[in-house]
């Protein structure tokens, strides 16, 4: 139990990453693959935030007068993840657009049937 509470965030983050990766590797459906990618994205973000966390720390916002600087969690991963989420949505939207176009062209989303991405 102690172990679980110690590492629960890591477990959560990496479970997401590996489930997402498994979807990417094993699934045939293009939209499913993109869902997998978004799950990997979430997992990585969670991992980064977890790295910056300090036990008993407070959010890096001086909203109340009594807050101490020593007690705050790392703001740098938070800033990084903030931008990563926004970029993530843009990339996802682009990927889905391409998926829609591929569907319009081939009439299927099955990656095993869309074979002309060969060079």
């Amino acid at each position, binding site marked *: 139990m102690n172990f*679980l*509470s110690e590492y*629960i*965030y890591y*477990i*959560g983050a990496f*479970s*997401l990453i590996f*489930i*997402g990766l*498994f*979807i990417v590797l094993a*699934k*045939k*459906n293009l*939209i*499913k693959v*993109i*869902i*997998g990618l*978004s*799950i990997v994205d*979430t997992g990585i*973000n*969670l991992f980064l*935030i*977890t790295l*910056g*966390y300090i036990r008993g*720390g*407070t*959010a*890096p*916002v001086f909203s109340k007068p009594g807050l101490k600087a020593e007690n705050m*969690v790392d703001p740098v991963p*938070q800033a990084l*993840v*903030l931008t990563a*989420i*926004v970029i*993530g*949505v843009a990339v*996802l*939207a682009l990927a*889905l*657009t391409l*998926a*829609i176009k591929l*569907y319009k062209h081939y009439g*299927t*989303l*099955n990656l095993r049937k869309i074979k002309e991405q060969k060079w």
Partner: protein
Amino acid sequence: MEIVILILVFLMIVSAIAALIFKDLMNAVIASCVVSLIAAVLFYFLQAPDVAMAEAAIGAALVTGIFVIAVKRTKRFEE
């Protein structure tokens, strides 16, 4: 407190696996939305309110919306 987090992470993993298993893409999208939502809550517990807000607004709302549109434009069921 810890038990809440444990349950949340457990739920998150379960919904990720659900996203993996569901044949109906709409259900898979909703499952991934749940993953994002729980992640947002976890961000809040990890003292990152900014990120939690962004994840809730973007990951849970916008991404899901975009996915739903895309699924409606293509095919709903995985072969």
